[in-house]
């Protein structure tokens, strides 16, 4: 056997071996995917494809962290570009004399250099910067992978630079150093100067070593992937293609008769959920933005995914399956989630953390395990239809004290139906605000009504606590009147209700347009029905999770502020990157055990760091409660005031604001 034949046999063997091993490790994963629940992720594929290309080649999410994004782009693009090298290097063995043209040769070398820069930056990031988001990730795995990629780069440079000298003996070819292969060219000259090039043994050894380090490591890498976070090089792109295209705010898809919401085993997940756990890159971007994690609670969205992944790997290795809810992922982790969705917004490979957490919560709940305060709230929703445990008949009590009574949409047709929500109806401090909204709408001459006792809690939080049955029964109570009353469209003052009505009621057949009151106010101003005079104050605005992130309503509140002559100073975390107040997902009712810094306090400190901003504007009743308390607990009472956007508008259109304290000076 000649040397060339030997190399060919080596290549075939390692290719076959690595591929077979890879497939053998991937098949069990595939089998789990096939046993998992269905989810349609192949609909509307042209738009999925376009979206995927933007994320993959534009690195849209990855570049939100500049250094990571750039270094990842170097390494990632290397994987794509250097495929040319793999083809060429193997090709040379089987088709002696095969040669890349100058442009391709240059590109290969350029990318080898870029990948090396990427590796150096990656090591710098891991070893020197050490971001907290890596805490809990398998750092060794990270270094092993960087090392393997580094070895491949060294291999490419070695065999490329020795090839012209070895080719003479090995393939009986005359090959010259090509200046377009600038790395090979430079190193080749080094070999010439040191005399290594002219020693046949060294030249051949250099070429073979380079080839083995390059091609050998490429296949070793393939074999290493199935047990590494680096599996994402195969799964990330499909995962982005398969991203959720149903409304973002829809937590639970329509359920079939026999499939509940609870996730007890991997078969209770849909196949994309299972794919997610293997797609995770352990980058920790979710962990870095998680309000529960920032508050010092035991939750990290990344660790939830990794715990599930490791449990599944153990199951595949033959271990007895463990309970996913409460054991693999602890109850403390699960109940700490605010369902704010920041993790999903940050995830570069579009993992859906929140539905998994909610499904696991549902399993805990089925076993009767839930925080006792939340349990009281669930019972109150079931019995009275509101979280306050107040009689249903007192729901419209807030309307007392209005000069003009609000229409009862159950009894007469209205243009707009206002879905008020629990907090705005029952919380004494927020009732005043509800009356103010009513007066503004009356001032604008809007034809609107409410459902009075016909309204119950929308069920958004019940669902997020994992109580699908309760969500359904609350929804049915509301739908009785939502379907019977005559109105053109709905608006809500509460983003949580908005989310349920817009996204969760669809599966129950409800499809009326649902808007937020800020959108209604913007329209009323545009139509000239409200004419705000400029207020001339500097404010910052907090995007509620269920308005912004989950329903993408970012502009209306900002337009409204602009129309009122308010100067908006954005907090560093705004828009889709807004930071949760800590109230969502039922957290508002739970014990604050183990919280080092409340998310709302963290947020108010962020706002307080802005210069000359005296007002913290909110557009969600729960935010009003959370942040008013946070302003006090962080000692910012004198400096910052929490106001609802409606209070500013009332001031701007010259309505008397009942509580003198609300007045803006």
């Amino acid at each position, binding site marked *: 056997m000649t040397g060339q034949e030997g190399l060919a046999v080596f290549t075939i063997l390692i290719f076959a071996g690595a591929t077979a091993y890879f497939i053998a490790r991937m098949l069990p994963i595939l089998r789990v995917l096939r046993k998992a629940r269905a989810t349609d992720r192949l609909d509307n594929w042209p738009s999925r494809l376009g979206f995927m290309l933007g994320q993959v080649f534009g690195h849209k999410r990855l570049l939100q962290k500049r250094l990571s994004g750039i270094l990842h782009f170097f390494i990632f693009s290397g994987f794509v570009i250097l495929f040319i090298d793999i083809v060429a290097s193997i090709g040379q063995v089987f088709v002696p004399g095969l040669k890349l043209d100058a442009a391709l040769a240059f590109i290969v070398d350029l990318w080898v250099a870029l990948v090396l820069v990427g590796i150096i930056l990656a090591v710098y990031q891991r070893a020197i910067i050490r971001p907290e988001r890596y805490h809990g990730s398998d750092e060794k795995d990270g270094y092993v992978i960087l090392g393997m990629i580094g070895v491949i780069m060294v291999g490419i440079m070695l065999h490329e630079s020795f090839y012209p000298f070895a080719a003479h003996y090995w393939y009986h070819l005359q090959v010259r150093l090509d200046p377009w292969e600038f790395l090979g060219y430079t190193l080749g000259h080094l070999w010439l100067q040191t005399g290594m090039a002219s020693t046949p043994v060294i030249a051949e050894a250099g070429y073979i070593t380079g080839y083995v380090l390059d091609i050998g490591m490429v296949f070793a890498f393939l074999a290493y992937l199935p047990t590494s976070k680096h599996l994402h090089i195969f799964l990330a792109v499909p995962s982005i293609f398969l991203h959720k295209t149903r409304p973002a705010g829809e937590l639970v898809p329509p359920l079939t008769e026999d499939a509940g919401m609870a996730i007890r085993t991997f078969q209770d997940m849909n196949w994309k959920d299972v794919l997610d756990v293997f797609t995770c890159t352990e980058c920790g971007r979710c962990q870095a933005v998680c309000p529960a994690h920032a508050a010092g609670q035991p939750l990290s969205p990344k660790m939830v995914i990794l715990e599930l992944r490791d449990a599944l790997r153990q199951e595949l290795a033959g271990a007895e399956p463990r309970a996913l809810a409460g054991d693999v992922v602890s109850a403390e982790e699960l109940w700490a989630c605010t369902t704010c969705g920041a993790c999903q917004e940050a995830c570069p490979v579009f993992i859906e953390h929140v539905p998994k957490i909610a499904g696991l919560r549902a399993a805990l709940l*089925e076993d*009767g395990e839930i925080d006792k305060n939340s349990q009281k709230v669930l019972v109150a929703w079931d*019995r009275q239809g509101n979280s306050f445990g107040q*009689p249903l008949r007192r729901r419209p009590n807030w309307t007392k004290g209005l000069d003009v009574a609000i229409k009862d949409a159950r009894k007469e047709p209205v243009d707009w139906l206002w879905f008020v929500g629990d907090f705005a109806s029952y919380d004494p401090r927020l009732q005043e605000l509800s009356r103010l909204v009513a007066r503004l709408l009356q001032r604008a001459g809007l034809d609107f009504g409410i459902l009075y006792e016909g309204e119950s809690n929308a069920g958004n939080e019940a669902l997020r606590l994992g*109580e699908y*049955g309760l969500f359904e*029964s609350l929804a049915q109570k509301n739908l009785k009147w939502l379907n019977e009353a005559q109105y053109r469209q709905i608006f809500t003052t509460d983003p949580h209700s908005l989310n349920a009505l817009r996204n969760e009621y669809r599966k129950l057949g409800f499809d009326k347009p649902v808007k937020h009151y800020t959108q209604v106010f913007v329209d009323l101003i545009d139509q000239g029905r409200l004419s705000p005079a400029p207020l001339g104050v500097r404010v910052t605005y907090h995007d509620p999770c269920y308005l912004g992130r989950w329903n993408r309503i970012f502009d209306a509140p900002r337009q409204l502020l602009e129309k009122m002559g308010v100067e908006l100073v954005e907090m560093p975390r705004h828009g889709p990157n807004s930071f949760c107040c800590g109230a969502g997902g039922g957290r508002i009712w739970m014990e604050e055990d183990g919280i080092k810094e409340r998310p709302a306090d963290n947020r108010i400190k962020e706002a307080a760091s802005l210069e000359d901003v005296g007002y913290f504007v909110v557009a969600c009743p729960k935010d009003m409660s959370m942040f008013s308390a946070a302003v006090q607990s962080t000692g910012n009472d004198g400096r910052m005031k929490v106001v609802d956007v409606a209070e500013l508008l009332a001031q701007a259109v010259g309505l008397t604001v009942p509580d003198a304290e609300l007045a803006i000076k």
Partner: protein
Amino acid sequence: MRIAVLLKSVPDLIEDIPIDEESGEILYDEMSYIPSEWDDQALEEALLIKEESGAEVTAITVDTGESDTMLFTALAKGADHGVKLVGDFDPSLPNRQRAHIFSQYLGPQSFDLVLSGVQAIDDIDGQIPGLVAGILGWPHASVVTEVRAHDNRVIFRQEYAGGLVAEIKVSTPAVIGVQAARKPPRYASIAKVRQIAKSSQLEEVEMSIQEVPSLEILRFYKPIASGHAEMIDGDVDEAVDRIIEILQEHNLMRG
């Protein structure tokens, strides 16, 4: 060990109790009903005993309307059987009669332990556990916590005045009025209750009303307040001013 848990529903006090002003009678039909919270504690304690040392738990109620959900909820939480004692009963059924109905059913059955809530918000003529024990002639203890079953002996605790706690043993069968379970009662999710309601059957047993010595309620009424508290509104400064004013009015200020 076979444990019977006696359940009843009581008016939900979140709503005002409707009274017919003229007759002074409670309008039972106009109220909504919820499981008595002490009965919930008794059920939880029974389920804890079941988990701890094994037992068969039967939830039993006298059907005064809407008792199905209560029994299905008990099954969803982990009870093994649900028994509905049916007859011409309504929510105004006196406890003494209720106790006779329970006893009539329990007598021929071979339960080892009967648990029920120590009281309910509408006990007018006595508490169920004591009445049942008296009728059956079984041992009884009330205001009990930490019930544990060992073979055919039941051990529990009772608090006494002067900071004493008694550990008490009773041989079965016995009736115990539970004050509080060791853990807060568990939650039964709506979906699970619905699923149980679809998949399991309640046992219905026809019972008759027995004449018992009874009380006559002349009227229910809301007492007229003889005095009332003043709620101080306003911000801190205003509240402080008002408190000082009140203290001065009552000559309670010095200096």
